């Protein structure tokens, strides 16, 4: 399998975590199993590398461009794009939230459109051009949407953030192209460059849930990139210099 992109750190950390939990299981159930069974389990654990997880019952070979790089993967037909990104390519920026298309944490941009990677089979991505959160920055220079999310503190725990940012980046292009939303007025006449009100942004971002409730700041971050104008902030990040106590 192709493990080029799976970094040393990522791979060993994952293997380590897997072994720790498996060992814990063995220890906890020690009184319930025979020594023979324990030896057998050890053997299975020894083999439980990333490679052997590749069940390959119905293998499909897929070629796709991911963050500008051509990739060829042989995957089981059941593998979703989300799992292929995370487990096979080490691109763990894309998050698995609900895995059922209800939260938007797995949002990526496929052929220019935002989609849910958890409800997309990797087998169906042959020939596609996919951009994940890892592909937005140019080298060390963050994408303006990433900058804006930092500037407006548009997250708390950060788990939904990659999906929010991918979604927001695609959203601005959709508005430029004149795509309507349920709250767009005069859909019969509006054609290009839709100006997004707060209501529009909220409607268009409704597929990305944030359980920390960072919505007001997410809206501001998007509004700034959309309008290229500074948004009012009604808060400040505390720094050492600000401390008066």
């Amino acid at each position, binding site marked *: 399998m192709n493990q080029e992109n799976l970094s040393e750190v990522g791979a060993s950390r994952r293997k380590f975590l897997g072994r720790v939990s498996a060992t814990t299981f063995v220890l906890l159930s020690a009184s319930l199993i025979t020594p023979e069974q324990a030896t057998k389990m050890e053997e299975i654990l020894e083999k439980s590398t990333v490679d052997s997880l590749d*069940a390959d*019952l*119905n293998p*499909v070979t897929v070629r796709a461009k991911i963050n500008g790089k051509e990739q060829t993967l042989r995957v*089981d*037909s*059941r593998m*979703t794009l989300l799992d292929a990104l995370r487990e096979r390519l080490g691109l763990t920026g894309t998050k698995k939230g609900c*895995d*059922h*298309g209800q939260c*938007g944490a797995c*949002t990526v941009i496929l052929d220019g*459109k*935002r*989609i*849910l990677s958890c*409800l*997309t*089979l990797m*087998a*169906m991505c*042959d020939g596609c051009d996919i951009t994940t959160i890892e592909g937005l920055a140019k080298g060390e220079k963050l994408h303006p949407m990433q900058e804006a999310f930092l500037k407006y503190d548009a997250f708390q725990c950060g788990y939904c953030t990659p999906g929010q940012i991918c*979604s927001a980046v*695609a*959203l601005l292009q*959709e508005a430029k192209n*004149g*795509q*309507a*939303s*349920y709250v*767009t007025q005069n*859909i*019969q006449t509006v*054609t290009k460059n839709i100006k997004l009100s707060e209501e529009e942004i*909220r*409607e*268009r971002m*409704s*597929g*990305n849930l944030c359980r920390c409730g960072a919505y007001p700041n997410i809206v501001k971050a998007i509004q700034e990139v959309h309008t290229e104008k500074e948004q009012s902030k009604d808060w400040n990040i505390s720094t050492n210099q600000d401390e008066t106590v």
Partner: protein
Amino acid sequence: MKPFKFKRASSVVEAIEEIAKNPKAKFIAGGTNILDLMKEGIESPDELVDISRLPLAQIRMLPNGNLSIGALARNTETANHQIIRQKYPLLSQAILSGASQQIRNMATNGGNLMQRTRCPYFYDISMPCNKRNPGSGCAALEGLNRTHAILGWSEKCISVYPGDMAVALTALDASIKIQGKNAERIVKISDFFRLPEDNPEKDNDLNHGELITSIEIPKNNFANRSYYLKIRDRASYAFALVSVAVGIELEGGKIKDARIALGGVAHKPWRASDAEKIILGKAPSENIFRAAAEEEMKKAKPLAHNKFKVELTKRAIVRALLNALNAKQA
């Protein structure tokens, strides 16, 4: 997810043949519903035939004045197509009220019609459900049924059809074009969807081995006075508790033609024909709209937890009609 063979079809004929020869094979296009159902263990095909790249995505006017919408056009493209936005804004509005932008970018029109109910008991495989497991009973009937049907349900199934697009298509009198192994047929949307009766496992008229190829909408004059009202538990990204699709055509201050279809209240998009009859030929007013809503809801049979839907539907019908009336002062 159970293992399945994956095959990409290179033609419509090949796709249909592949499905027809295997009773456990299914089509996949957008995947937004089937993959979720497979993850939940509700659907377990042993073969998926990928039809997403077949040439069935065209949206165009036919010589007879009907609009033809390809089954594989994505929801987003459909809602934003210039002809549809200008001449059938009701359809755009209905599509845009559903799901999220991500899902609409993936979902196809054919798949949208085929989406299965969101009844929580259908989704919970530890529960009896006649739709999922015929003959096992209906857990919703005596269970929590706040979101369930108030019209046309049976003792076997009280679930509702979850979609929005099909509600607008029902108001627009659309037809569904279906290709089988040996023949093509066209079914009116009101006959395509069905009530549960004694066999709720069958959502619609499509048989195994048949493929929806397009949707046709006859010419109408509702473009300037139509509205899709969707009422749900949160402001966006939720299934309808009740939705109403309406189109009105006025002539000389009287209602010349009117269509009213309801979502979230029955096993199929519900054409409110009795309400339509009340307002036809009358001058539009809130009073006459209310009378129409009262007439339609005489048939309503609410369950233990969804009595609120009856009044909600009445008010939604009135609101949707008023909004359509004022949509554009042509």
